[in-house]
């Protein structure tokens, strides 16, 4: 519906992957994606282990991991060798904070990554006091 990705500030990464704020926020509110983000928070964990621990079907787990990886919210930090000689990717979350606001009929999303990069979706975040609670 015509949402524009707007970048502001100096630390904004150049690409938003053409995601609109709705797609961006779905990365967080999708049940499996949210679980994967929690599973990889300050941890290095394989897809297999996430699938087992969080009850995510393995194929869906791989698919969601791929989506989150492409969006830059998680990253593969290591490829270890299992006892059976198979390679296993270990993932960790790169997402530090995320904010999704719906106000006046508009949806906006902001991701703050561990690298310090900020990605905004859906318009102006200037003057929004995020910490007003």
């Amino acid at each position: 519906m015509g949402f524009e990705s707007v970048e502001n500030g100096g630390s904004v990464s150049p690409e938003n992957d053409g995601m609109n704020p709705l797609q961006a926020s779905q990365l967080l509110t999708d049940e499996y994606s949210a679980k994967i983000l929690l599973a990889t928070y300050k941890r290095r964990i394989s897809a297999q282990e996430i699938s087992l621990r969080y009850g995510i079907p393995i194929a869906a787990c791989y698919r969601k991991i791929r989506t989150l990886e492409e969006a830059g919210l998680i990253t593969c930090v290591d490829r270890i060798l299992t006892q059976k000689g198979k390679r296993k990717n270990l993932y960790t979350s790169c997402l530090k904070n995320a904010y999704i606001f719906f106000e006046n009929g508009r949806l906006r999303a902001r991701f703050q990554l561990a690298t310090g990069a900020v990605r905004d979706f859906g318009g102006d975040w200037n003057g929004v006091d995020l910490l007003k609670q």
Partner: protein
Amino acid sequence: MGTDAMREKDISRLLTDEYAERILVATQANPRSVQEISDKHDIPIAACYRKIHELENAGFLRCAEIVTTPKGKTMKLYRSLLKSAQLVYEEGVFRVKFEFDYDKDINGKWIELNGARTA
């Protein structure tokens, strides 16, 4: 408490559902009929009815008016009751906050969803 957290999680997912979001935006300013929303916002009519009922049950929408069309059919007009919603993820914890147009128990309260610490 667990079921409560799930309920809020379902609600926050409803918010970012593509159709639900369009419906909430469409009904923000003026009451609209299902047919009108479906036409204007390109939502299949059956899905539109289903989502509207889901949103109505969750307290996001209200039937504001019932009008009679020239053909004598009655038509419900819906209006959004959600003023604002915020979903925040910090330090491995998800929290949500909603503000509704009417008195609702969860108005303005931060609700913590399952975080990395408890999951």
